[in-house]
């Protein structure tokens, strides 16, 4: 009896080993696919969030509502900045995401045409030294009477 079982056990053990080894090899490729799917979903979520915030900012501009952004001077254009953490909550200093709003103006006889360039960036992480641009949009707003009496 023992003589008949032993060869089968060896075969079974060999089959198990081959199975585990094969599964380990296949897992590498499957894990890569799962990681790629996760990265793609994360970037889609990031873009969606940035789009919603950008749209909301532009609607505030269209409605002439005051913007709750930090003002920073940069060259000829006025720069307004807002910082967001990884959960997309507003924070006071540079964290994970930065929204930059460049404002330039062009004078007309009756008022001024303000052009806004909005850029969303992801702060550099690890060895990267440059911020990754997520989104870029622009719009303009004409304000009658602005700068007329200056």
């Amino acid at each position, binding site marked *: 009896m023992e003589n008949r079982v032993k060869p089968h056990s060896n075969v079974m053990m060999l089959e198990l080993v081959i199975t585990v080894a094969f599964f380990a090899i296949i897992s590498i490729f*499957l894990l890569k696919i799962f990681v790629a799917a996760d990265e793609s979903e994360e970037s889609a979520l990031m873009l969606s969030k940035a789009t919603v915030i950008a749209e909301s900012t532009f609607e505030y501009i269209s409605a002439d509502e005051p913007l709750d952004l930090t003002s920073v001077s940069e060259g000829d254009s006025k720069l307004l900045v807002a910082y967001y953490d990884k959960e997309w909550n507003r924070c006071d200093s540079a964290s994970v995401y930065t929204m930059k709003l460049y404002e330039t103006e062009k004078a007309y006889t009756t008022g001024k045409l303000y052009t806004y360039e909005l850029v969303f960036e992801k702060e550099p992480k690890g060895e990267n030294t440059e911020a990754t641009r997520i989104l870029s949009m622009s719009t303009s707003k004409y304000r009658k009477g602005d700068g007329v009496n200056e």
Partner: protein
Amino acid sequence: MNNKNSIKANLGGPSIILIILVLALSIFALLGLRSSSNEKKLAVKTAESIADYYKMNARAEEILAQAEDILATCGEDTAAEQLSGIPEVSNVTADGTNGGISKVEYFVVSESNDRTGLDVCLTFNGKDLVPSKWKVVVKEPEEGYEMILLD
């Protein structure tokens, strides 16, 4: 005899489990990848269409500024001519008080999709040009156009 049968039945079991497991994981991985790539495509398209709208909006605001400028600096006789010189302006109505400009209509075409545009109508109230229409218009597809539902 019984022992022999039970050992035979166990042989090949791990292979079958492996095949089922690998198949299931592959299906889930591919479905996940497909779903996330579709989500990304949708997010990119949404961002592009919103950016496109604000680009049209920017051009419309620029024309509004130009129109206000023309009305403030030019005489009533040359204002209509100057306004008509702006490429997007489709119609200038001059039936206001003393033959002045009463309405300026223009259409800003989207850069990415020529079937979409911003239709604007500015009405002159004697002092300012006030937008009475500021609407995104999508033209009907031409005959023979096939809508692609699946990418």
